[in-house]
């Protein structure tokens, strides 16, 4: 149970911190009150949550941040670079704290930062302790104390009070907990004839005498919510209590104020009488209500109409649906074998439905890139400050959806490309002015869908890539001769090679020992690709293409001996059957195959994986030309079987990781096919 609460807390905290960070960056220099309110609310909620789970350092830090934001909201502090910077440092510290809590290793309290904040606020650094919430109490409860006293309460509620949620019985129950009644008089004089009686009208009023250890104010508190709907008088009674009992014929039992309580609304109490039990999801979110009008684009609200589901559950669902599709394909095959027209058409429609189902299930895993994108506002802000440049980040297509796993893994490469653009792409303000450009450089971050792929572009309006410089470097590395006539895109592709870096000196920002080759690797491991376009003086665009989902792959099935291998379609250029004259062997380079005058390395797939096949003569086999960035090669297989969508099953989960293999899939006829990981295979074969 505790874990459940903590998990929700961590999840929610991550969301809140994102909102905070994004809001703060937008806040800088802005005076939109709603902006500040949203940020304030985020800090406030986080503080409240931290209190619930008892993380006192988090409470104290958010308390200070909330204080700063409050002053900003009131116009005492300006949302300038200094104040926003301080708050952003707070956000960083929040992240560290939360990560520490998650790791079970609570970090040091960020005392210095907190002192700085407290100083700015003119306050002391707060120091709360877990469970330090003794001071709160309700207006309905309290602790027993002090001497007993006698009170007389005359209570007359307005006639309509029952219709507003106030129930006199509640008052009696509350009073009862504060002491004991010595006498209650219920006045029924105003009760009309039954025919004139309004069912929700209150016609009774009371005089109550009670003993209580509370003081007069506390007893009055019971009625505080009735305000203008009641005439209440609470006074200390002296002695006059149980004396005139004879003169009180209409004493009523408190427990049953006659007739005046409205019947409770009809309600299906039996569990099965509830068509919708609305249980909280595993993440505590309730199922989204039926189409509510779209709330205004509000950070906190946009996460509202969602359910939290553990990714595990989704993965299982995706898997099962995958099996269903395969099962349908298998039945289809059997139907074909027994030549049953009727069965075939039935199975065909079943196949359609299962594929639709599959697509929908895949969609459930998709989330908008917005969350990831918005984090870069902060990155760009910090970079600009660090580099002394003026940079604006322009985003579009933030609603574009991508598989959750892809989104998580694309964040780092994107960050790197943005850094790259800020550092190498964009010029200094002076250089820009000299080039007749606006002082402020722009980085665009765009996402859109195209031809079943998701495209993410990181573009800048900087100086563009210096072709000569890249060529020179590539020549130095011996990848190319300085006078080679090659296209721009081929030149730029060198930048993705390991060991390439044109920066004259390694800068603090993008030269962290991680080059574009790592970016490429990361993207390729997501079965995506990256290309670059650049115009001298006008800017550079990195274009990342990603599959919609990692769970399904468009593949070409080929046979090698008894094995059936699935090759990602994305990497295939063409396939051909070489003639003897196309094949040559070069010392140190191994076998090459000539494709329209270009010699490509020939990789014998059966050799790589140790499969047995009789087709070892390349002229009898087929060569599939594979392209990954900067390298093309031919892959020799026995035969091509066809194209098909494959649901990837991880080998790691069921067996172990195999280099060069992404996973396996089950074919329509029930056989297993291994899916190639081109990038891994490349590493395996070309050994870098």
């Amino acid at each position: 149970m505790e874990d459940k609460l903590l998990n929700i807390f961590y999840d929610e905290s991550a969301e809140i911190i994102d909102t905070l960070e994004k809001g703060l960056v937008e806040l800088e220099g802005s005076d939109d009150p709603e902006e500040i309110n949203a940020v304030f609310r985020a800090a406030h909620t986080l503080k409240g949550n931290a209190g619930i789970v008892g993380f006192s350092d988090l409470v104290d830090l958010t308390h200070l941040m909330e204080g700063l934001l409050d002053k900003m909201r009131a116009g005492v502090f300006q949302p300038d670079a200094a104040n926003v910077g301080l708050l952003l440092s707070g956000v960083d510290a929040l992240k560290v704290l939360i990560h520490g809590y998650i790791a079970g290793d609570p970090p040091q309290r960020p005392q210095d930062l907190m002192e700085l904040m407290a100083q700015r606020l003119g306050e002391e650094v707060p120091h709360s302790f877990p469970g330090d919430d003794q001071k709160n109490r309700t207006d309905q409860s309290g602790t027993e104390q002090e001497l007993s006293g006698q009170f007389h309460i005359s209570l007359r509620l307005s006639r309509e009070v029952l219709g507003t949620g106030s129930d006199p019985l509640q008052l009696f129950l509350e009073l009862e907990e504060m002491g004991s009644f010595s006498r209650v008089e219920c006045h029924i004089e105003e009760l009309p004839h039954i025919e004139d009686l309004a069912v929700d009208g209150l016609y009774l009023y009371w005089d109550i005498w009670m003993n209580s250890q509370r003081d007069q104010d506390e007893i009055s508190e019971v009625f505080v919510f009735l305000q203008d709907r009641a005439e209440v008088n609470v006074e200390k009674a002296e002695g006059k209590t149980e004396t005139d009992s004879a003169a009180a014929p209409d004493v009523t039992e408190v427990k049953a104020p006659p007739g005046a309580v409205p019947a409770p609304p009809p309600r299906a109490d039996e569990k099965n009488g509830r068509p919708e039990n609305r249980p909280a999801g595993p993440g505590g979110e309730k199922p989204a209500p039926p189409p509510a009008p779209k709330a205004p684009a509000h950070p906190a609200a946009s996460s509202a109409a969602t359910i939290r589901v553990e990714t595990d559950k989704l993965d299982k669902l995706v898997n099962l649906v995958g099996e269903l599709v395969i099962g349908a394909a298998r039945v289809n095959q059997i139907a074909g074998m027994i030549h049953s027209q009727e069965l075939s058409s039935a199975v065909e429609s079943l196949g359609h439905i299962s594929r639709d189902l599959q697509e929908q299930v895949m969609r459930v895993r998709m989330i908008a890139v917005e969350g990831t994108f918005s984090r870069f506002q902060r990155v760009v802000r910090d970079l600009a400050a660090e580099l002394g440049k003026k940079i604006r980040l322009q985003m579009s297509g933030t609603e574009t959806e991508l598989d959750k796993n892809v989104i998580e893994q694309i964040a780092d490469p994107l960050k790197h490309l943005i850094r790259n653009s800020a550092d190498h792409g964009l010029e200094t303000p002076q250089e820009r002015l000299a080039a007749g450009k606006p002082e402020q450089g722009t980085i665009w971050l765009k996402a859109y869908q195209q031809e079943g792929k998701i495209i993410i572009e990181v573009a800048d309006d900087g100086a563009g890539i210096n072709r000569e410089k890249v060529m020179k470097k590539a020549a130095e590395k011996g990848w190319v001769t300085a006078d080679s006539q090659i296209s721009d895109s081929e030149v730029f592709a060198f930048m993705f090679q390991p060991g390439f870096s044109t920066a004259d000196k390694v800068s603090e920002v993008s030269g962290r020992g991680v080059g574009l080759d790592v970016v490429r690797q990361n993207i390729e491991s997501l079965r995506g690709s990256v290309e670059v376009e650049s115009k001298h003086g006008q800017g550079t665009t990195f274009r990342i293409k990603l599959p919609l989902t990692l769970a399904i792959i468009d593949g070409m099935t080929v046979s090698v001996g008894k094995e059936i291998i699935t090759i990602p379609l994305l990497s295939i250029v063409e396939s051909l059957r070489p003639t003897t004259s196309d094949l040559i062997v070069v010392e140190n380079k191994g076998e090459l195959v000539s494709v329209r005058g270009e010699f490509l390395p020939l990789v014998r797939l059966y050799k790589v994986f140790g499969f047995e096949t009789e087709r070892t003569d390349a002229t009898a086999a087929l060569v599939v030309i594979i392209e990954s960035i900067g390298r093309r090669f031919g892959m020799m297989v026995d035969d091509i079987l066809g194209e098909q969508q494959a649901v990837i099953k991880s080998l790691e989960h069921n067996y172990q990781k195999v280099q060069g293999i992404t996973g396996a899939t089950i074919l329509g006829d029930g056989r297993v096919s291994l899916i190639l990981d081109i990038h891994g295979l490349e590493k395996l074969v070309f050994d870098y």
Partner: protein
Amino acid sequence: MSNKTILIVDDSATLRMSVEMTLNPLGYNIVQAVNGKDGLQTLDDLDAHGQVPDMIISDINMPVMGGIEFIKEVKNTKFRYLPILVLTTEREESKKREGQQAGASGWLVKPFQPQTLIAVVKKFTRTLS
């Protein structure tokens, strides 16, 4: 064990979960909403299924529609008789007054002690037996 239903309206999932974990073991059925607007919608949804809650617990500071407005709106519906406990970090008297005038039946300051919440909820959902 109770078999009562409570609608909790709060934008914090953590808070909603902690309320649920406090009250669920006592048999309370907890229905969640993330802001005032969602709360009203949820009341309608529940009503459509003949499942009316026994009380409402609501936060004050929420996006889209805050607690005060929510309470006022509830008082304009057929659910106006439902007791509404405000559960908030707001301690200010003026806010409290505003809540009372809107029609709140109780005010509890966060973070709450489980026993306190249980006591208040029991009080508000007690019916004649």
